[in-house]
């Protein structure tokens, strides 16, 4: 932020000084802008999008961060540290140790007991019931809860009345709303094989301690959850439930026992206390020394850190993907300035000739540019807030679609600091572009400028470009060396940079065209080939690297195409024999003659279309592969039945169902893990399997250690040896995207019992390509129970259906029949499809986001066309005088736009297809499994039609203007 401010100051200072000290420069700039208001608006509109994209990325991050931060208020309130034990009998002693005397810096402790249980309404007249499979039962003393911390208002219990007794219970609003229950209604809970009904005495808001549900839901993004759906029951209820015959604690590996918590409040409100937790934690741990099976977690701090991390992650994701568009925006700015300069070349040359100093020239130009840049940045920041809002809206919808693990109420947030940062970044990028272009322009050769000739390459010019080229080759070489040593960006960019830089050098030995062709071919092939040539280095490439790749490829392709565009010219000539030939000839002549300008436009289109093509490929890939992915995970089964850990479905009961042929119970737990790329213990799911899972098939591995000839052998080894495991490529990954760093067959990781601290090292024998069911590592059930004891609960069953049973229908039937177990039975294909649809949704969101970049390209084309009409007024007048029909003039402009847009689109599509094919089919960047490759024809058709149509639309107005130019008027214009 400071760096940004300093940079901004440096870039803006000369403008401000000039504006104050040199009235004539200021007036010149103002007059130039005023003279062309419409165009100024176009310029600002086109160049604001970069800022809008950056700002919106910040806004999205802000919103996610703020939404997760808010769960500190709705699920923790005053609670900052949780002490967790599976031995509920210990609770009183634990509380006493922490409260008597109080740990310095804390202001209260609260013991409570939590069990998971499905909750439902009694059957109504029609026999219908509403159920909440993920309900929570909480035993807590209301009086004590209100005393936790210094402010009863944030505990959630302020107006909750006394602790319920007898058959009364209090519901949190989250649950009451979901079940549509009110005070006086009856609610039924199911736990440990029995059921119990309560009368609803009160409904309280799901905030503070009242919203605390013990944590637990986890997904790709961590454990953020909205306020719990709880039934606050009278003390002793859980013990009574367990005392029934079916509720008695079974063998390890049955229902999850109730969990005891002591919540500790650190002085300060919901958010103020977080910073002080570190000072309290050591003393809390010291006091608990010697008590077995206790897990101390700084819950508040973890949550706030997660909020920041997720916020940052989303900002990063959107700003890197948006990077393509931002670069397109820079190209637009350069383009606009080059055009401005060309238009005033003669004027500028005259000014230079009459002795205006070069510096003045730069500053006069810079001032005008700075005015555009500032207006664009401010407008961009405002638009960015709106764009952010749209993204947030779509994202919220997507989160509710799959199993991402974020279950939070979105709170739109746009921090002033973020908006200012977005604005500042956009402004710095624009200003740097403006100054660089102005400098380039001021190096005008005076004679050439006055006579409107291209700059002759002078001697000093040539030595300089040779020196620069040599320096570039050396730098590229060094980068490449660093790449061979493991730096991905270096491996990717080193060679192309060296190749680009070598152009002036090689052009001395070979004909220039040949030199450019050879070197651009190198720069074009390498960024694609590198993924196969250096797989070790390129594995785990992130999105930023793909941006670099895209820029390199597009630069090379556009250079290649523009250098060889004469071929198009000849084609046009041949076509000019045909009917619309004259329009064609005129339409192609200008872009072919103004290569630099054309190249910039091509670059804008190609960059964005490249990414969109890439995404279209993935979108199609995901959409069409659900059946295949299903086959890979289901191991011969049809349904995945999940149930509530407090009252899981029993294997026997499932086997009794008429639809069911076989059942494989799966143990689930959420211990902690470390791996070479994740040294801090991180909670993640684990799955315990037994031989029943392998009875009808085996999940398909993407790779395995060579000792085992088949996937089945690898799984059998896992069953036999508690030190072996199968993991997925997404194990311990944060965020989406391809895995950054991952475990390979033969490597080891550690699983830790969070309660006892006991750890076990596991060796990976095989890797699953994806983790659609969020299984986490798969280990033998016996070994899992040994390490985790009652934490491992059979909450999942793989069910094989009898022949002829329709999976989705059976799923609905079983879900209803096992309502008391909180069962959710869905076919593997349905689960995968819903997850895929979420992924596709995200890709769609990204595509929409990148569509903004397309707007930049189209706005750029529009600006270029509008300027072209003005630049060529006299020429058009002459053509009309010579008898060119108005429609030929209009046609020429439309063809010019088509020519540029089509070329850019085709470059982008080709690069996108080749790159994605290479990455998917020939490299391990997206994992070891062969994802296959499909050409997304429908997507490509859209990619071709929409930008082309929009470009024609953007060109239609200037083309119309051009066709209406009256020759007598146009020819009068003084030159």
């Amino acid at each position, binding site marked *: 932020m400071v760096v940004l401010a300093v940079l901004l100051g440096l870039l803006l200072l000369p403008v401000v000084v000039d504006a104050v000290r040199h009235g004539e420069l200021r007036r010149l700039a103002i007059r130039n802008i005023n003279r062309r208001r419409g165009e100024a608006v176009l310029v600002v509109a086109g160049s604001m999008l970069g800022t809008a994209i950056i700002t919106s990325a910040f806004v999205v991050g802000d919103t996610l961060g703020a939404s997760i931060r808010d769960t500190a208020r709705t699920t923790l309130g005053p609670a900052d540290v949780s002490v967790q034990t599976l031995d509920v009998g210990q609770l009183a002693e634990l509380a006493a140790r922490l409260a008597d005397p109080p740990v310095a810096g804390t202001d209260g402790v609260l013991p409570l007991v939590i069990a998971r249980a499905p909750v439902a309404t009694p059957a109504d007249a029609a026999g219908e019931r509403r159920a909440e499979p993920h309900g929570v039962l909480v035993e807590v003393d209301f009086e004590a809860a209100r005393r936790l911390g210094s402010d009863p208002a944030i505990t959630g219990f302020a107006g909750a009345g006394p602790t319920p007794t007898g058959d009364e219970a209090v519901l949190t609003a989250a649950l009451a709303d979901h079940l549509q229950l009110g005070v006086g209604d009856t609610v039924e809970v199911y736990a440990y094989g029995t059921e119990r009904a309560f009368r609803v005495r009160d409904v309280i808001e799901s905030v503070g301690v009242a919203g605390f549900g013990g944590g637990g839901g986890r997904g790709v993004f961590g454990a953020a959850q909205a306020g719990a759906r709880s039934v606050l029951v009278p003390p002793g209820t859980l013990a009574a439930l367990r005392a029934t015959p079916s509720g008695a604690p079974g063998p390890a590996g049955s229902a999850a026992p109730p969990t005891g918590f002591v919540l500790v409040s650190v002085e300060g409100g919901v958010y103020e206390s977080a910073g002080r937790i570190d000072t309290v934690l050591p003393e809390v741990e010291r006091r608990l020394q010697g008590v077995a099976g206790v897990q101390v977690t700084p819950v508040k701090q973890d949550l706030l850190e997660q909020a920041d991390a997720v916020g940052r992650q989303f900002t990063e994701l959107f700003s890197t993907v948006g990077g393509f568009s931002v670069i397109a925006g820079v190209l637009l700015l350069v383009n606009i300035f080059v055009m401005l300069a060309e238009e005033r070349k003669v004027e500028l040359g005259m000014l230079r000739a009459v002795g205006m100093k070069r510096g003045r020239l730069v500053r006069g130009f810079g001032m005008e540019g700075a005015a555009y840049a500032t207006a664009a940045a401010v407008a961009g920041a405002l638009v960015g807030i709106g764009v952010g809002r749209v993204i947030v809206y779509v994202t919220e919808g997507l989160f509710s679609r799959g199993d991402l693990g974020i279950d939070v109420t979105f709170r739109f947030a746009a921090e002033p600091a973020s908006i200012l940062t977005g604005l500042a970044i956009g402004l710095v990028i624009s200003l740097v572009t403006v100054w660089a272009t102005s400098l380039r322009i001021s190096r005008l050769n005076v004679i050439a400028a006055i006579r409107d000739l*291209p700059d002759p390459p002078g001697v000093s010019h040539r030595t300089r470009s040779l020196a620069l080229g040599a320096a570039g080759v050396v730098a590229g070489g060094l980068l490449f060396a660093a790449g061979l040593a493991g730096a991905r960006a270096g491996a990717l960019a080193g060679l192309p940079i060296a190749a680009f830089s070598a152009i002036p050098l090689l052009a001395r030995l070979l004909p220039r065209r040949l030199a450019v062709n050879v070197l651009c071919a190198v720069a074009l092939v390498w960024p694609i080939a590198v993924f196969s040539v250096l797989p070790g280095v390129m594995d785990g490439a992130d999105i930023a690297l793909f941006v670099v790749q895209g820029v390199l490829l597009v630069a090379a392709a556009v250079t290649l195409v523009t250098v060889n565009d004469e071929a198009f010219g000849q084609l046009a000539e041949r076509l000019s024999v045909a009917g619309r030939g*004259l329009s064609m*000839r005129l339409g192609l002549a200008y872009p072919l003659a103004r290569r630099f300008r054309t190249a910039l436009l091509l670059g804008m289109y190609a960059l964005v279309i490249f990414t969109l093509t890439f995404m279209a490929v993935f979108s199609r890939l995901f959409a069409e592969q659900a059946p295949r992915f299903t086959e890979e995970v289901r191991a011969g089964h049809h349904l995945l039945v999940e149930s509530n850990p407090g009252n899981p479905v029993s294997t026997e009961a499932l086997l009794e169902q008429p639809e069911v042929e076989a059942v494989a119970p799966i143990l689930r737990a959420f211990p902690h893990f470390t791996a070479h790329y994740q040294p801090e213990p991180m909670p993640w799911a684990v799955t315990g399997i037994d031989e029943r899972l392998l009875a009808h098939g085996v999940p398909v591995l993407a790779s395995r250690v060579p000792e085992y000839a088949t996937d089945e052998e690898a799984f059998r080894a896992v069953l036999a040896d508690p030190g072996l495991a199968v993991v997925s490529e997404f194990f311990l990954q944060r965020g989406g995207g391809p895995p950054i760093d991952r475990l390979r067959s033969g490597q080891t990781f550690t699983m830790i019992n969070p309660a006892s601290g006991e750890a076990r090292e596991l060796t990976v024998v095989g890797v699953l390509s994806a983790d659609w069911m969020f299984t986490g590592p798969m280990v033998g059930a016996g070994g899992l129970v040994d390490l985790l004891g009652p934490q491992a609960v059979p909450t999942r069953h793989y069910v094989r259906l009898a022949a002829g049973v329709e999976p989705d229908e059976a799923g609905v039937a079983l879900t209803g029949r096992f309502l008391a177990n909180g069962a959710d039975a869905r076919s593997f294909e349905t689960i995968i499809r819903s997850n895929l649809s979420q992924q596709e949704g995200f890709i769609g969101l990204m595509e929409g986001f990148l569509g903004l970049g397309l707007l930049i390209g189209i706005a750029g084309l529009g600006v270029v066309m509008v300027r072209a009409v003005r630049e060529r007024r006299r020429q058009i007048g002459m053509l009309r005088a010579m008898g*060119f029909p108005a429609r030929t003039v209009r046609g020429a402009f439309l063809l010019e736009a088509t020519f540029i847009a089509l070329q850019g689109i085709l470059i982008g599509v080709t690069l996108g297809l080749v790159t994605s094919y290479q990455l998917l089919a020939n490299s391990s960047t997206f994992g070891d499994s062969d994802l296959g490759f499909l050409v997304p024809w429908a997507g490509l058709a859209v990619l071709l039609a929409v930008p082309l149509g929009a470009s024609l639309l953007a060109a239609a107005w200037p083309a119309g203007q051009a066709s209406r130019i009256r020759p007598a008027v146009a020819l009068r214009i003084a030159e």
Partner: protein
Amino acid sequence: MSGVATTEPMLEATGVRKVYRTGALEVEALRGVDLRIHAGELVCVMGPSGNGKTTLLNCLSGLDSIDAGTVLVDGEDIHTMDDARRTEHRARRMGFIFQSFNLIPVFTALENVELPLLVTGVPAAEARERAAAMLARVGLSQRLKNRPTELSGGEQQRVAIARALVSEPAIVWADEPTGNLDSETAAAVLDLLREVHDAGQTLVVVTHDPTIGRSGQRLVQVRDGRVTADGAPRDILGGLPDGNGHDPAAGGRRGPRPRRTRPLRAR
């Protein structure tokens, strides 16, 4: 008048009025002009700056519309045609040469000269041949592939002349064709125009240069939007060295010419 007047005129303008309207301001640039031009004539149009010469050229050639009167070309009224037809008429019957050469910068000399042929539907190969021949005629056979920026002013104007002539138009209109050239180059261009006329081309040349005016067979003087004199140059210019009524010593022919825009009638 010259003896050519005995035949039917190629162009016959009667009572041509042209009013420019900019906002509330109206400028009557032509106030009832009558003019006949016969095939093969070389007509020089002279007159003080801002008095309507360019306007006359534009209105008579069909580049601009008129407010009253008729302009018949070969008996056809070009101002009753719609824009498309008048455009086509220009393509087939008119050639234009301007002070600033107005070449299309992205085309080579050859491509520039081809344009009028292509627009009238001449096959590309033939167009290329005829354009090359025409460029050879104006002495530029060595510069076919050069773009305008690579040519000198005189060369550019010769390309423009070639372009105006290549489709063998009925009338070639030249508005101060030597205005942007130094005296030597101007002389060469004039020689070229004279040669063209000698070959039978009808030419209307607007000029400030009395030597040009004097050298033609017919001079039309325009003042205040009217034709004030029409006849043999000697009769009109008399002994005066400057047909515009200025003393050349005061301004100098090549010096910056003050553009006097005197509204003839402002409301």
